[in-house]
């Protein structure tokens, strides 16, 4: 009971909920924008990977993509954040908010993972779909955007949802670069009295609720997209 009272005082009376709400917003922002950037980058890489390798430029592009994926999958995200915030940003002589750096790094990192998911998705679509698109005179890019990628997204939606869930949870490391996310906000509340039980349990519950909510939304979306698949 004492633990609860301390938490209540810190959370309500001393206004701890402000930083929790701000932190929640930061968490969601980083995950959502990170995933959006990741999907764009991942799709581009995936398309390069499934292209016919008959031109030198595409071979070079593929090597660049390979290096990119190797770096972002081969190093911990914390290290990437630290390099981004404490090395690259000062080296470039620009001033960027921690949260912007976090969004960029999360986007770049998830791009590496999404590229593999996307590639599998594109390859799961029958080659004939692309051929039919090209046969009526659509350029490669248009046939991919209008025909192949919409179908592949439907196939990989569960995996993409998984990636989003991973991103949401991994945002808890952004306090390394002085961004206040929801984890950092609750830790500060605990730090005030060295009383952690209540804040951390509530923190875990909040993550759980977010993830379950997303899972539900993905299921809904999946059902909606599968509508045109019912057979006669």
């Amino acid at each position, binding site marked *: 009971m004492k633990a609860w009272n301390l938490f209540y005082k810190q959370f309500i009376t001393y206004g701890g909920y402000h930083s929790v709400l701000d932190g929640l917003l930061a968490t969601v922002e980083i995950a959502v924008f990170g995933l959006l950037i990741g999907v764009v980058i991942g799709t581009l890489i995936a398309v390069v990977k499934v292209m016919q390798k008959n031109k030198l430029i595409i071979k070079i592009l593929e090597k660049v993509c390979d290096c990119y994926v190797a770096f972002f999958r081969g190093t911990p995200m914390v290290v990437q954040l630290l390099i981004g915030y404490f090395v690259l940003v000062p080296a470039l002589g620009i001033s960027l908010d921690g949260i912007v750096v976090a969004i960029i790094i999360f986007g770049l990192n998830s791009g590496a993972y999404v590229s593999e998911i996307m590639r599998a998705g594109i390859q799961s679509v029958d080659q*004939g*779909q692309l051929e*039919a*698109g090209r046969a009526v005179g659509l350029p490669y890019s248009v046939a991919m955007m209008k025909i192949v990628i919409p179908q592949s997204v439907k196939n990989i939606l569960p995996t993409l949802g998984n990636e989003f869930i991973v991103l949401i949870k991994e945002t808890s490391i952004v306090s390394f670069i002085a961004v206040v996310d929801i984890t950092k906000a609750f830790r500060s509340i605990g730090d005030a009295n060295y009383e952690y039980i209540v804040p951390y349990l509530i923190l875990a519950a909040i993550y759980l609720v977010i993830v379950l909510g997303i899972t539900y939304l993905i299921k809904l979306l999946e059902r909606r997209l599968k509508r*045109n698949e019912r057979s006669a």
Partner: protein
Amino acid sequence: MKEVLDGTPLISVRGLEKSFAGLKVLNGIDIDIKNGEIIAVIGPSGCGKSTFLRCLNCMEDPTGGSIFFDGEDIADVKVDINKHRENIGMVFQQFNLFNNKTVIDNITLAPIYCANKRLKAIKRKNFLTKLLRRPSEELILVDKDKKTIKAEAEAEARELLRFIGLEEKADAYPSTLSGGQKQRIAIARAIAMKPKVILFDEPTSALDPEMVGEVLDLMKKLADEKMTMVIVTHEMGFAREVADRILFINEGVIAEEGTPEEIFDDPKTERLKVFLSKVL
């Protein structure tokens, strides 16, 4: 047989070759396809007849020879192949309707895209004319916008659906259709681009026997409208009835060609005789 067709050839194939990873599939094919002509391509499996057809719109890039269409050698990789593919329709064995689009969107997707592309090009040209104040150039009249392009394409698509007898399926998704219906819509999709020629890659091979008829009937209707067609087929009866000329391809070359009568009633080569004895 139809009267003899005249005029310059629509497609001229010269010394066409195609290899896959060192394996030579086409070994020098020469042929002229005239406007309005219907050509059936027959041959044993693996002889290269589908590859030949797929080379005609560069679905497979030829590894040698030339294909002249509309005054350009489309086998040359520098040619804008998309522009020419608008004029070369293709119908696939596996239908390949766009699964994420309704029937009507399947038919209108490419016409709308191409019309919008042309509209954009005209607008860009007009803009440059105005910007640079070129007196010699006249502004091109823009009488359409995106909305009218879409409306026109949809009206035409509905007209086509009436033509193939599937008007009521306009808003259905391909997965709800039978094989025969899918193939008829795939043919409508090809016609919607108003192509100069349509290539058929074994259009009835993936169909249940009772659905073959409806697709062949539609193709006969096209033949009556003097559509130029190149048809790879195993339907010998159909080839005999509809085609003006038959190509027998064997081991990557045209082993024999002639009118249906010449091919079916009086085969010259031993290979064709053996082939016909197996399939007839």
